[in-house]
């Protein structure tokens, strides 16, 4: 290869990275534009929230000016953007803390829930998807199809309530809503904010056990939705791979059927699975909104919905922005990993 072609391919790589970063930035800016748009069109007048509805016109105008609301919309948007760039989402009316601080405080709980659910989804969803794809049309396939259809049809808030009723109310197998029983609060210091890890670090196994009995129900319910999605996608990837000629070749050379499935077909779907798992993880971070409400789980979702009802728009929009940013970030990361692991794409 000559120097010129090496330089050329390097330049192409740089260009690709630049366009990737550019697209990402553009999406982020679009995200802020939408949240800004929402804040402009909201039903509650933010000025009235500050001065009250009995304030004389002069006071109202002054407050409006102080809040920058008399400026032209594009200027307002720019100042909003510059505040967000330094992490200033304003103050939450509900907790009277800066919104960013609140979000950082509540995020680990959501992360904990979504991570365990995704681990469940991968552990159960991938193998059952592979088997369903390999045994297309047979009973494992039908089971995965039904699990998938149920997963797409069950209202998550309802199944949460019903499971609370059965497993907590009637059987008493698990603990009720919340992350810990009241007696266990404040025993472990927050190193990571994830109670299961914090209590394990400090060796407080009674706290660990209590936290586990609280998380198992919401995590299993979210995990079910993750299993439904991952299994369905794995199945269709598997069917596509198994119809390829290299599988026939492997079988002719004497590979057993399951050997061909796991040693030949499975490695080829792993790259596509990364994207699926990432998407399911990101959607769990948002899907947790309803689950957190039902289980009084003090995460981002509960924070956003609670703020909604105290008309705390700073908190709602800050939360929306962060969830959206995480969503975009995970998507971009998957896209990036896909390009790295799939040699066809990195050269194309």
């Amino acid at each position, binding site marked *: 290869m000559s120097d010129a072609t090496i330089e050329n391919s390097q330049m192409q790589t740089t260009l690709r990275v630049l366009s990737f970063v550019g*697209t990402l930035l*553009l*999406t982020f800016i*679009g*995200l802020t*534009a*939408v*949240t800004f748009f*929402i*804040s402009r*069109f*909201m*039903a509650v007048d933010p000025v009235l929230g500050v001065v009250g509805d009995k304030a004389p016109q002069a006071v109202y105008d002054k407050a409006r000016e102080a809040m920058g609301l008399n400026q032209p919309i594009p200027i307002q948007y720019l100042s909003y953007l510059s505040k967000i760039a330094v992490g200033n989402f304003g103050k939450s009316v509900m907790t009277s803390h800066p919104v960013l601080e609140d979000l950082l405080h509540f995020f680990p709980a959501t992360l904990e829930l979504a991570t365990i659910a995704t681990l469940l989804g991968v552990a159960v969803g991938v193998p059952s998807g592979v088997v369903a794809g390999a045994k297309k049309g047979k009973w494992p396939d039908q089971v995965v199809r039904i699990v998938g*259809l*149920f997963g*797409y*049809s*069950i*209202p*998550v*808030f*309802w*199944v949460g*309530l*019903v499971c*609370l*009723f059965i497993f907590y*109310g009637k059987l008493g197998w698990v603990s009720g809503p919340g992350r810990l029983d009241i007696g266990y609060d404040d025993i472990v210091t927050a190193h990571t904010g994830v109670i299961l890890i914090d209590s394990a670090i400090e060796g407080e196994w009674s706290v660990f056990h209590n936290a586990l009995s609280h998380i198992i129900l919401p995590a299993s319910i979210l995990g079910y939705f993750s299993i439904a999605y991952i299994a369905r996608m794995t199945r269709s990837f598997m069917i596509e791979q198994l119809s390829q000629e290299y599988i026939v070749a492997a079988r002719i050379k004497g590979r057993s059927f399951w050997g061909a499935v796991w040693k030949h077909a499975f490695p080829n779907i792993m790259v596509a699975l990364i994207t699926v798992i990432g998407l399911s993880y*990101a*959607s769990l*971070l*948002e*899907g947790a*909104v*309803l689950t957190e*409400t*039902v289980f009084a789980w003090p995460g981002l979702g509960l924070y*956003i*919905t609670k703020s*909604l*009802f105290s008309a705390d*728009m700073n908190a*709602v*929009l800050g*939360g*929306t922005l962060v*969830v*959206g940013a995480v*969503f*975009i970030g995970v*998507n971009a990361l998957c896209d990036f990993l896909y390009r790295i692991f799939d040699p066809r794409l990195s050269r194309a």
Partner: protein
Amino acid sequence: MSSAQSSTMTWHDWLASETPTSRVQALSSRVYQSIGAVTANPAAFTGLIIISILILIAMFAGVITHGVSPYAQILAERLAAPSTTHWFGTDELGRDIFARIVYGARVTLTIVLLVSILVAPIGLAVGTLAGYLGGWVDIVLMRVTDVFLAFPRLVLALAFAAALGPGIENAVIAISLTAWPPYARMARAETIAIKNSDFISAVVLQGASTARILFRHIVPLCISSLIIRLTLDMAGIILTAAGLGFLGLGAQPPAAEWGAMVASGRNVILDQWWVATIPGFAIFIVSLGFNFLGDGLRDVFDPKKS
């Protein structure tokens, strides 16, 4: 074909004919064969039956409940367990849950219809315009689509519903604003596939305007896959609407909305399980119906994706 032969021809032969002799015959045979294909697919057939029942329940709500109002409060009978007088029991205000479920079918159907009416034209307009015109129109429209696609749906709908204020119309708007991007993507892909075909070149040469080409030639070809996709999405729309209702951002009291009904039974779930449980079954069965139908339709009309 002689007249003697055609007199012995049955309706089935006429409809199943491979060589239709008129437009009417061609159209009716297509409808006939589609119905045959859908009813032969067990999933699609089950879905079709569930949704037909839902529509019938919504239409004849008054007859089915024997005139029991979904709003009539009998406080003396509040939180009554299911019995022969109240099949599904009563809620915390003594309203008959069976009547509220039946009338709730109307709310659900209204939401589904309104969202479809809003989402389909937006998706078609954005997608076909971007696909047909290409260039910077395509780039700008698809960037906007990507931004909306990158949003977590429920959170965005939540923020919209919060900004617009609670209510069923605003919930519909919020859901539509978050639901259109996949349709735009799909319509764009189809338009790009269609626009270089000979029949489009032919109408261009005949002097058809861009608007005419889009509306008369491209949009009709995008509609069938749009309908399949919409059917598959219906369950998601119903679940999002129910979720908004559960959070108190959808239909407002005293409206009989299934999601809000689950929420109202939340505090009494341990003692009066029926208040929250039964409306959830309604949501589940209807979502399942739409999923069955959508899955089946995809199997029937799009064999390569099954």
